[in-house]
Every structure is written in structure tokens, then in C-alpha cells.
């Protein structure tokens, strides 16, 4: 596996408060990597070290290639126009003077803000501000993008647009996103790292994490009778939520595949004329995340 970012034994303390206790992290190249953890787990500290805002007490990181970043709590200068802000940043990113204007057009187009180049930054809405933040990260066509809570504080429409935008960014590029929104991470990331109290507790593909303990959830249109329940229990260990009319079945996928379990349960339900409203397989990222942090 080629890595875009590799962190080894990263430590950082703020006085007596330990923020990172020897963090190890490997981000595979050309993936969208979700960096998860509770408040104060060490996500922003990690990003701040990578961005050069703070220095680590110990440990190393290796990030070959150019980096773009949307830091948390970063602000643009008040009163300046978007294009003049981006001009300075493009030059600092090493964009040739003759290509600065076209580069600014390119990144503004990428965030759907082509018509807003002359707008002063302080006149922008929160959603626009985030987009400019992403636009500046794209300057100079970096190989790896680090986004620290890119949808924090955004309304659902703007958050959806930013998520969609991020999904379009990882062509031949690695994207690392820190977020508290687990549904968002599950939707857009293919790898996750879960950090707790300054240490990595899980790292790997999202698919692997959510299928570790296979589950099937059948939402039924009515409660089956006891006879049917007994028969279903015979297929596998099943639990019932009468209130939600939900049949929850956990099984060992090494003994019974998802497809086989699905077919057996459906056959039984159809035989007993019990309607099925929805079927979900696998665990949610939220469920696994809480499990990893021992919070469930």
C-alpha cells in the first residue's frame, strides 16, 4: 500500500494536558480518509502539527507531495476581495505569476464561485466562506488535502454541497477529513481512523469496519405472531423491537452469508404473509465508532 501520509509516534502536550500520546497513522494514497474522534481527542492538534502551526514534542510524519489545507479557525483578511486574497496565497503556493489568474479562476470554478471573485470576503455568507477556504486549499493543485471539519456550522443544503464537492476532489489525490458527522464520513470516505485520547484505536477501510459484525435489520409492516418469531429465531439469534416493528438479527457471517440469511428470513416472512418495509444490512459507522470508543 502506497501511503500519502504516514505519522509515527506523534506526541504533543499543552502544559500538563496531553493531547497526543504517540499517534500512529497511515493514509493510503488516493483515498478519502475520515479522521474521527471526540472533542479533544487530538484531531485538530494533529492537523495543526501537519500544517506547521504548532510543533510536536516527539514523533515524525512523512508527507511526500504538496499539501493543501482547510485549517480550523483560520480567517481571511477583512475587507479584501476574494481574488486578491487568493492571489497572495497562490503566489505563496508556488504558482507562477503568469498563471495566477487562471489558477484563481480554476479553483473558484471548482467550488462553484466563478462569479464571486470581486466580492469582499467579509461580505460572504458562512457557506461561501467555507467554499473559499476549500478553494484556497486547491491552489497549486496539491497531492493531499487536509480538511478540518469542513461542514461544521453549515446548514444542511450547504453541508450537502460541500460533501458533494469533496467527493469530486479525490481524482488522483488524497483527501483527509476530520469530522464529527459520522453519517457524512460513512458517505464520502473509504478509509477511517478513529482517535481517542491522543491514540489511534482503529484504522482501516470503512467497509471492513462496518461489516465486522454482520447484522440484518428488517423493518416489518406488522408484528409477526409468536410462531413466526420462533421460526426466525431458529434461523439465527433474533431480537425484536415491538415498538419499531423491527426484527434485528445478528449472525456470524462465516457460518451464514448475508445473502443466505436474507433469503431464509424473507422466505419465512413471506410464507407467514408479513410485509417488509425495509432491510438494512451491516452496522452503521456510528454503531462501530461508539463500540470502538467503548461508548455504546
Amino acid at each position, binding site marked *: 500500500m502506497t501511503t500519502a501520509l504516514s505519522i509515527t509516534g506523534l506526541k504533543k502536550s499543552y502544559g500538563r494536558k496531553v493531547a497526543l500520546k504517540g499517534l500512529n497513522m497511515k493514509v493510503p494514497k488516493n483515498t478519502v480518509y475520515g479522521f474521527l474522534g471526540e472533542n479533544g481527542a487530538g484531531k485538530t492538534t494533529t492537523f*495543526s502539527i*501537519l*500544517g*506547521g*502551526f*504548532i*510543533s510536536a514534542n516527539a514523533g515524525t510524519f512523512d508527507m511526500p507531495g504538496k*499539501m493543501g*489545507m482547510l*485549517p480550523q*479557525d*483560520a*480567517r*481571511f*483578511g477583512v475587507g479584501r476581495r476574494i481574488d486578491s486574497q487568493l492571489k497572495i*496565497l497562490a503566489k*505563496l*503556493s*508556488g504558482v507562477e505569476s503568469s498563471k495566477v489568474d487562471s489558477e484563481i479562476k480554476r479553483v473558484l470554478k471548482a467550488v462553484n464561485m466563478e462569479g464571486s471573485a470581486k466580492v469582499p470576503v467579509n461580505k460572504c455568507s458562512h457557506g461561501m466562506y467555507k467554499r473559499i477556504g476549500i478553494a*484556497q486549499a486547491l491552489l497549486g493543485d496539491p497531492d493531499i488535502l487536509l480538511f478540518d471539519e469542513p461542514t461544521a456550522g453549515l446548514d444542511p443544503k450547504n453541508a450537502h454541497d460541500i460533501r458533494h464537492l469533496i467527493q469530486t476532489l479525490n481524482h488522483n489525490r488524497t483527501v483527509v477529513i476530520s469530522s464529527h458527522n459520522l453519517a457524512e464520513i460513512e458517505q464520502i470516505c473509504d478509509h477511517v481512523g478513529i482517535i481517542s485520547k491522543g491514540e489511534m484505536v482503529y484504522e482501516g477501510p470503512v467497509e471492513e469496519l462496518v461489516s465486522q459484525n454482520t447484522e440484518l435489520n428488517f423493518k416489518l409492516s406488522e408484528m409477526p405472531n409468536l410462531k413466526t418469531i420462533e421460526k426466525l429465531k431458529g434461523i439465527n439469534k433474533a431480537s425484536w423491537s415491538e415498538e419499531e416493528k423491527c426484527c434485528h438479527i445478528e449472525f456470524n457471517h462465516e457460518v451464514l452469508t448475508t445473502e443466505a440469511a436474507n433469503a431464509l428470513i424473507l422466505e419465512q416472512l413471506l410464507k407467514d404473509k408479513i410485509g417488509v418495509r425495509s432491510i438494512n444490512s451491516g452496522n452503521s459507522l456510528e454503531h462501530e465508532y461508539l463500540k470502538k470508543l467503548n461508548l455504546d
Partner: protein
Amino acid sequence: MLLGTPALILMIHYDKLAQENYDGTFRYYLFRTSRAKIYWSKFASALAEIALITLTATLIAVLYGHFKLDNFDTLKVLGYSLKYWLAGITPLLAFSSMVFMFSSWVKRPFLALLLSAATVIGAGVIMNWYPWMSPFNLDYWKGLFVPGTQLMLNSVLIYLGYTALFSTLGFLIFKKRDL
């Protein structure tokens, strides 16, 4: 000019680094370039501002005839004026470097202003006991206006020394600190 300008410098420079740190604007620069580049380019622009302000003031003084040099032609008057300006600017550079150092040290711009003002007062107090230690020693200032003498050279060297000291300390602080 020399007595009024330090207050102006204080007002111009106290937030040069501290304000950007406080606002978080630095975060868009730091992952793109080195701290050395940020610090020294800001420092150079701050000194250039001071040089331009004082040069403008000197030229205005020349134009309005504050330098009564009847036996010299215009070019010679300008030459002397520039020499005075170059000598007179050295304590201002030292003062700028000190304000800049505090601006790189603290996060809240107002604190940089307070620390700079407190240092000026402190240096004034020191001057009573150890005059040679204070960058605001009036003997050094006076020396700047005795052109072509060892006194002037000493004064210029002392102020350039203070400039180097404050700017280097400021840089070391800026390089090491968490932003």
C-alpha cells in the same frame, strides 16, 4: 520628528504579527511557506514603512526651509538632509524591532502595545542608573546629529546593534512558538 515618531511606530507596528496570529490569518500562510520568510518579509515591510514616513517628513522639512544652509546649493542641502535622515532613522529601526519582537511574542495585539509601552518606561527608569544600557539614552540620539564624528558612528552602531538584537530575538520567538 525623532520624539514624535516612536509613538507613531508603536501604533503602526504593535499588531503586525499579533493581530494575524489572533485572527488566524497566519494559518493560511504557514503550511505554504517558512516562518522565516513570513517574519523577515513582514519585518522588512515594517522598516520600509518607517523609512518612508521619516523620509517624507525630512523632505517636507527641507522644502519648507527648516535647514538654513545659505552657502550650499540645493543638491548639497538634499545630501545633508539624507545623511541626517539615515542617521536619524537608526533609533527608529531599533524601536520598531522592539515593538515587532513583542508583536511576535504575544497573541493579543493589545498586550504587545502594553509591553512595548512598559519597556519604554522601564528603559527610561534604567537610564537613570545605567545610561549606556538604554536604547533611549538621549546621548546616543544627540550623537546622531554631529555628522562626521566618532560620536555619530558610535550612536549609529549602537542603534543598529539594538535592531539586530531585538529582531533576532523576535525571530527566534516567532520560529519556536505555537501559532
